[in-house]
């Protein structure tokens, strides 16, 4: 493991997005930052800025009005990036499933890497999901680098 990969694993900067849920899971995310659960020991730092973030924590069923905003935020995040769906609403649609004002679930809008179900999710589950996401970050970067190499060699051959 190179030093960059190690540091990528050690410092996930988190973007917290609420997409119109009941605010229960938002509070659980906040309680992750409190002394009892303290995610900052994994180097987690909560930025309010998609351009600095590595991990997007998404909460709530995606309402139709929020669809454009969330794709926008997703596109602004620099690679490698990971999206975590926090709570049942974000993972499957939950009690809003089939409701006229929502898109169904988060994975209908942006690609989701980790699902953390629960209503509300426990902070422990969020931490588990975050730690899972850290491995995915490095895998994604490897895939991106491989693709770059391939496109370079194919261009060279052409």
């Amino acid at each position, binding site marked *: 493991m190179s030093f*960059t990969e190690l*540091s*990528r694993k050690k410092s996930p900067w988190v973007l917290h997005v609420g997409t119109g849920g009941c605010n229960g899971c938002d509070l659980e995310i906040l309680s992750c930052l409190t*002394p009892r659960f303290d995610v900052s020991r994994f*180097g987690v730092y909560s930025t309010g*800025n998609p*351009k600095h973030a*590595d991990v997007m924590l998404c909460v709530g069923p995606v309402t139709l009005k929020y669809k454009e905003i969330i794709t926008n935020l997703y596109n602004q995040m620099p690679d*490698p990036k990971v999206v975590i769906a926090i709570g049942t609403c974000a993972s499957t649609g939950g009690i809003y499933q089939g409701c006229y004002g929502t898109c169904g679930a988060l994975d209908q809008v942006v690609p989701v890497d980790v699902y953390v179900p629960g209503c509300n999710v426990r902070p422990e589950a969020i931490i588990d999901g975050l730690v899972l996401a850290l491995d995915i970050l490095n895998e994604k970067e490897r895939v991106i680098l491989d693709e770059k190499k391939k496109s370079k060699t194919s261009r060279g051959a052409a």
Partner: protein
Amino acid sequence: MSQIWNDPNFHAYVVPTILLILSPFIGGLLMGVDRRVTARLQNRRGPPIVQPFYDVFKLFGKEDNVVNKTYLVFGLAYQTTVVLSLALLLFKYDLLVITFIFGLSFIFLVLAGYSVRSQFSYVGSNRDLLQMHSYEPILLLVVFLIRLVTGSFQVDSIFAASQPLLYVLPLALLAIFLILPIKFRKSPYDISSAHQEIAQGPMTEFAGKYLGLIESAHFFEMFFMLAFIGLFYSKDLVIGSITVPWWIMSLGLMLVAYIFAIVVDNATARLRVDQMLKQVYIIGLILILLNLAYILVTGRWIA
């Protein structure tokens, strides 16, 4: 060994060069310790003390979405001027030039914030300018006071003075302590980069390795402010038969400033811009005027 130690060229060129090379590491470690101590004060465990390095190296390994080239130039100018001002301070150049170049680095960051079309960046830059408006006069007045008592703007004259600056300018040092949170971007004056309030202020649009550069510039900034405070005690302290070398006294003063910044950061909340302007101007100017009166009345010129 002692021959090298006593060689004036060693102190004039070799030591500053080593310090300049080590300064990002020292600054980064200081920031890491800071985050750790903050966490402990809040009864958390906190990240490891090498966390700032993890952050920077991660940023260097990320994709960089470039919005326009102007702000990259200004960001790079910010980084280089910070390093330049630190180098000038370590190589004992003119104190006035050092202060101006350090102020210039701030201006470049503001310009970088203005050169992109993001309202967060704009608000952050506006606030940054106001912060600069409040701290720069205080810093300059302190430099003028140093000039008044030592008779020269040269850093060497502080070392050549008959007494350490702390004995002559104690209130001016307090004024520096007052503007310390502004330069460290800490509460109560962390108005420009206002975490979670206006994204990241002027740094909002930076991403990837360019953000990494800006972050590493903060390491240099931290080291610069502490080195500047270290100037206030640059004489050996003699208590009876014991002689404490000047660099230990200097380091002690830096440590006091560092701990002061951390404690104040944790004990206060963020203020509004107008509150900051009032506090810094009124308290800072009163401290400096009192110190000026003290010098004039007691006639303590240490040139």
